[in-house]
């Protein structure tokens, strides 16, 4: 464990959490997730890639806006409820002001062809950002106790169910989730008994 902690930084204070999440939110066009991985894992190194994938899974499975869940988890891990609140407010304060400002500023031109085109183009880029975030998590699966093959099967099954067959997300998570967790539980038990 000593080696892992040496490679990792931690937020220094509630203010650090507040401003870090503030900065994240400001960069996050079309969602904050892609930026979270880049800033918190690659730049600040508050989380290893494996921790990020695990925390992100939990943030996703719990109800609520998932980046907000992640902010609460990370803030809460270091500074309890004060940390969670700092990260949450940091994430929401400036975007709220900005979004109201933008909404009133473009109220007149929102229908124009150029504006709609620009929103379309930004939409395609943010879709690409989200896909890349998923692909970048691949290396973290190598250390998964279920092994790479089982992980690939689960990932392919999830993609087919959600993207191709368009099944409701809740169904997919409630069937594949327990199967995957039980399988992981078995694999961990087997490894520990050796």
């Amino acid at each position, binding site marked *: 464990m000593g080696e892992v902690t040496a490679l990792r930084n931690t937020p220094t204070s509630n203010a650090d959490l507040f401003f870090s999440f503030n900065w994240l939110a400001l960069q996050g066009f079309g969602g904050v997730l892609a930026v979270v991985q880049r800033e918190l894992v690659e730049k600040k190194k508050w989380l290893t890639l494996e921790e990020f994938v695990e925390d992100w899974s939990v943030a996703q499975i719990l109800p609520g806006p998932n980046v907000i869940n992640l902010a609460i988890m990370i803030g809460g891990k270091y500074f309890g409820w004060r940390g969670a609140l700092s990260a949450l407010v940091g994430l929401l304060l400036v975007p709220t002001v900005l979004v109201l400002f933008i909404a009133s500023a473009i109220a007149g031109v929102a229908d124009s062809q150029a504006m709609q085109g620009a929103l379309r183009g930004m939409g395609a880029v943010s879709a*690409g950002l989200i896909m890349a975030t998923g692909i970048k998590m691949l290396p973290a699966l190598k250390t998964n106790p279920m092994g790479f093959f089982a992980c690939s099967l689960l990932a392919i099954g999830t993609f087919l169910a959600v993207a191709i067959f368009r099944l409701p997300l809740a169904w997919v998570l409630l069937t594949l989730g327990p199967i995957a967790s039980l399988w992981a539980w078995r694999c961990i038990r087997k490894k520990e008994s050796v």
Partner: protein
Amino acid sequence: MNIALDLHDWFSLFLHFVSLSFLAVGGAITTAPDIHRYLVDEQHWLTHYQFTSSVAIAQGAPGPNVMFVALMGWNVGMNAATGMTPAPTMAYEVMLALLGMLVAMVGIIIPSATLTFFSTQWAHKNRELRGVRAFKSGLAPLVMSLLVATGWLLTGNHDNYAQDWPMWALAAATTVIVWLTKTHLLVLLSIGAVLGALKII
């Protein structure tokens, strides 16, 4: 749009977002269809145009996706103010709009945030438990795949590849660039906006 909201209506609005807060598995955007059903079709507190432009603006602006809920609350408050006789002052209008935003945002965020805080504090204290580790490891491949699926679904509607292929090309190029390089995300988004505004995609 002219509507009148009494105290009971404000409370119903709040409760609706509270219930959605617990249903928003996989992100706030998954509750958008139900918000439309309630605010636009059932209560007529919001126009369809206000609904769609709230989603589009929140997607194009910095910040979490959930900001679309803030904009909708703001619009409901504005609509309530314009429905008043005699017409209220501008300051009063803005106050009602802010109230709408606050009601919607507190409703959708605080319940799930509280649940997340307490359950993850527990899970963090018990992170060595086999059950907790199995839950996290088991879900990891699902979540990774969900992200790719979400990006896939957001790229465009999937019924007109002949017309939409430039969008797909842009999304694919972005995926590769973000994966392999450290190009700043704002640079990529600006390129997308310019390409879109010039009708290249």
